[in-house]
């Protein structure tokens, strides 16, 4: 495991809203090709963590390194360039509601790639087909189900062939079968494209099914209490909070 290349490194990070410190002393590394899980109970700051990683919220202190580049220490243009190589799937999909699915996926392509209309149409059809939405090009986000909106959100996030994909609660609000399909899709995409995935979730089934690295944010201690492969954490962690979380509340075996 020593040849793994660091993709995102977080160093001594503190997240705060004004004077209220949400989490402090966060340090962990996401390696290339990881499916990295950010987990923790409700209100622990998982989504805030993601906002910091994707450049929407500035951390109070500490650094986020993309490769060797200090993300928040860089000028906005550098940040834009870094984050353009990432795709983000938001919790609700966050599709632009005034555009069809095809236009949603096409917008990043039109903006950043020099492609003809016909080429864009092909790419859009491919991306929508990858998430199982072939034939839904001309639908508006309000005309499809929540699960489909999430998948369309993934298609849009993948439009520019990103090196890293962020997912905010991908399986929240989905029925178990759809959630499972989404997990499978995330795994397949990682295996076939080699994309690094950062997933914010608290769904245990997903965590064990797809995650190979993780960080656990403990809301009571206001810091991270574990990092590593979730399956290994389950087997080895002696932290009662981590153990309780990963086993849905069973007590730590003595």
């Amino acid at each position, binding site marked *: 495991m020593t040849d793994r290349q660091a993709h995102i490194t977080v160093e001594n990070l503190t997240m705060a809203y004004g004077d209220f410190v949400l989490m402090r002393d966060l340090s962990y590394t996401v390696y290339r090709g990881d499916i990295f899980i950010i987990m923790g109970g409700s209100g622990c700051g998982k989504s805030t963590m993601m906002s910091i990683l994707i450049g929407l919220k500035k951390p109070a202190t500490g650094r986020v390194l993309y490769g060797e580049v200090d993300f928040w220490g860089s000028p906005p243009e550098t940040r834009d360039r870094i984050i353009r190589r990432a795709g*983000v799937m938001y919790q*609700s999909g*966050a599709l632009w509601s005034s555009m069809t699915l095809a236009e949603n996926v096409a917008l990043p392509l039109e*903006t950043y790639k020099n492609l003809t209309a016909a080429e864009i149409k092909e790419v859009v059809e491919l991306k929508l087909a990858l998430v199982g939405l072939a034939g839904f090009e001309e639908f508006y986000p309000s005309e499809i189900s929540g699960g489909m909106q999430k998948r369309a959100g993934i298609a849009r996030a993948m439009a520019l062939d990103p090196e890293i994909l962020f997912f905010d609660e991908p399986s929240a609000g989905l029925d178990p079968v759809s959630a499972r399909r989404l997990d499978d899709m995330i795994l397949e995409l990682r295996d076939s494209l080699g994309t690094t995935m950062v997933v914010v979730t608290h769904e245990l089934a997903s965590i064990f099914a797809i995650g190979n690295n993780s960080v656990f944010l403990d809301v009571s201690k206001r810091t991270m209490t574990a990092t590593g492969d979730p399956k290994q954490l389950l087997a080895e962690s002696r932290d009662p909070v981590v153990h309780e979380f990963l086993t849905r509340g069973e007590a730590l075996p003595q």
Partner: protein
Amino acid sequence: MAAVAEMTVKQASADRLLLALSGSWKLGEALPSTADIQKRLEASGGIEAIAFDTQKLAGWDSGLLTFLQRLRRLCEENRIRIESGGLPEGARQLLALAAAVPEKKDARKPHERQPFLAVVGNETADFFVSTGKLLTFIGEATLAFGRLLRGRASFRRTDLYLIMESCGGQALPIVALISFLVGLILAFMGAIQLLLFGAQIYVADLVGIAMVRLMAAIMTGVVMAGRTGGAFAAQLGTMQVNQEIDALKTLGLSPMEFLVLPRMLALALMMPLLCLYANVMGMLGGLVVGVGVLDIGFVQYYQRTVAAVRLWDLGIGIFSGIVFGVIVALTGCMRGMECGRSASAVGEAATSAVVTAIVGITVSTAVITVICNLLGI
């Protein structure tokens, strides 16, 4: 018909009270209060436990539970034990559940009132913060406009055309109605005074100059503030709630260019046209009064209007229209962009967009009028 809820308090032994509950203990019915028990506790003293007898209890719901919660709080204050053995099985479990997680002491929101000076201070600080935000927004919009002039702004042309259609063509009926009526009203108001001097022909001057120079622009501006400014704020606010604006940002697309610029451009292009249209409708309203009520000839009214209105007046009116258009678009977009993440925040954003736009229109009218006065035009 269920029996009325009743409670009898018996002294079971020297240190034990027995509450016999009977009848139907349900919400919305007259339930006994814990005050009786409190009195009893104070009177007798030395009570260490309270037990229950619920064999005659006909029915219960949350009414019984809230009574028991109140009783429990009372007992905690007086260090009295509650023997819940006599309670119905379900009620006992629910009580245990409610007590399972102790109340988080610092979670309750404090309800303290701030002293007057603190309120004034906070409001003043807020005022400066929001002025700063306004200036930042105007600055960013100007920069985006600069990028547009250099051909480097990225937004979808189809968005621009759609917005132009909705704030241009679709606004015609309401603008027509309002400006026609304003012309009509101006003519009537003027006519009453001018008739005293037999100078009713000057109604044409009055309506023509007032509409072209000011009223058309103001009325259109106010209509657009309510119609389009509010809509912009609600659209952008909903996009904010739905994380759509975050999605734009993480794609490296500036919401300023992508959302604000086309709206500003559309209104700045459409407002002058709407103003022209409102001018015509307003003069038409004046004409109806002039010809129909004051017996001025049609041609006479027309020629008087042409003689009275100068090109300068039209220029000032159109210029005001463009300014108002930009103000309505900017305030609508700004309130939308700074919208919070809830449904009520979207409503507030729409309201505040309309109010800010109307204030802006009034203030800028005053500024334009003073400048014109100084320049002598």
